[in-house]
């Protein structure tokens, strides 16, 4: 079992193909697989569909793949921070499927668990319900949402061991575990790879069975909204 790769490029080399469907972790710019996204940009893979809560900003995250026109379609819940995204969407160059945030997360989790569809109250009576099966359970209406089965998952974690067990840090966990679960192949980039036995088995956030390849790297970890309070407030 060799899961550790030397670089993001090496880890992605034989898995990328034009038109593929990629599930990506991250919320805003927090916990995004920034190194793997850069490697996809360099590889030049085209017509990509991304399931990702957000689309990054113009020059960071998925935004860098929008600049190079490598993205065909996005499944997201919120894309407000990306001007280039909006330009491409309004001009018809980019397809967009809005998913309520919890529905998107559950679609990934469900796909990873072998569940092709589930019923949810979220979006009943809204545009999200258009074209979807409505079913009544115990007098309440629910809509059918589909599990996501992606060709590739790209995620960011804090620490890994060489068997792929992952530990995330604070709110950088977000979409990473469900995104990791729903792909045929999952590549994780981490800040540190530690020796086997160093991670507490009771504190693994995502078991290595979901993670096929790991790369270690240095992360920029950009902050989107820097909000602080003054020390004098104490």
């Amino acid at each position, binding site marked *: 079992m060799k899961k550790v790769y030397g670089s993001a490029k090496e880890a992605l080399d034989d898995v990328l193909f034009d038109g593929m469907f990629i599930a990506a972790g991250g919320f805003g710019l927090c*916990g995004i697989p920034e190194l793997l996204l850069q490697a996809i940009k360099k590889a030049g893979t085209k017509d990509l569909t991304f399931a990702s809560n957000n689309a990054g900003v113009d020059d960071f995250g998925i935004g860098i793949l929008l600049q190079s026109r490598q993205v065909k379609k996005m499944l997201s*819940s919120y894309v407000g921070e990306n001007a280039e995204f*909006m330009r491409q969407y309004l001009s018809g160059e980019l397809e967009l499927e809005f998913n309520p945030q919890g*529905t998107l997360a559950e679609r990934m989790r469900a796909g990873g668990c072998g569940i092709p569809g589930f019923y949810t109250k979220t979006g009943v*009576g809204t545009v999200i319900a258009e074209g979807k099966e409505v079913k009544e359970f115990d007098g309440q209406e629910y809509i059918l949402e589909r599990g996501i089965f992606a060709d590739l998952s790209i995620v960011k974690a804090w620490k890994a061991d060489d068997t792929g067990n992952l530990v995330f840090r*604070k709110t950088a966990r*977000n979409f990473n*575990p469900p995104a990791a679960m729903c792909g045929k192949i999952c590549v994780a980039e981490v800040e540190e790879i530690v020796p086997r036995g160093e991670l507490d088995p009771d504190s693994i956030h995502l078991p290595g069975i979901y993670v096929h390849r790991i790369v270690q790297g240095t992360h920029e970890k950009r902050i989107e909204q820097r909000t602080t309070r003054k020390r004098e407030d104490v």
Partner: protein
Amino acid sequence: MAGEVKGWDRNQMAARAAEELKDGMYVNLGIGIPTLVANYVGDKDITLQSENGMLGMGPFPYEGDEDPDLINAGKQTITELARTSYFDSATSFGMIRGGKIAAAILGAMEVAENGDLANWMIPGKLVKGMGGAMDLVAGVGKVIVVMDHTNKHGDSKVLKACTLPLTGKGVVDRIITNLGVLDVAPGGLRIVETAEGVTEEKLRAATEATIV
């Protein structure tokens, strides 16, 4: 037209909304005036959820202590508390969809007398997405809307029927505006109280929705 009637300001609306929260509640606060509610919970034991994967959200960090791995759903840097727990997005919306979050306090563009809520898009304008709003209003125990009673043209935002695309159908329980507090009830809205200096007559005049 409501004319000169102002009623509560933003902070007073937030303080009134904080009265809705009871000891032990797990609560999700939206962006804008709802965020201010946290300043008025006083001694009550309230746990704030941030839907990107955190229970027990703390205040903004001191300058220099910002952590890029610790943000709220508005992407702002925040801090953790002794009670904090972290989890992934599927778990986070599991607790929302599963009704474990007692209440959500959020802003709105329009609310209708049947509890319909519109707060995510205006046709023809730039659409940013619904984020977690549709999941929250469909899932949490109680949906409390905090907003100005009228828009900048003086038109009522409390309507017989929403004109904008819905975030949720029949989901709102209580509306807190600068003019007072209204509950969604059978047949229309019921006045719970009026803001200082606002008469029931003035509240009715500024409201398009049916008041029962």
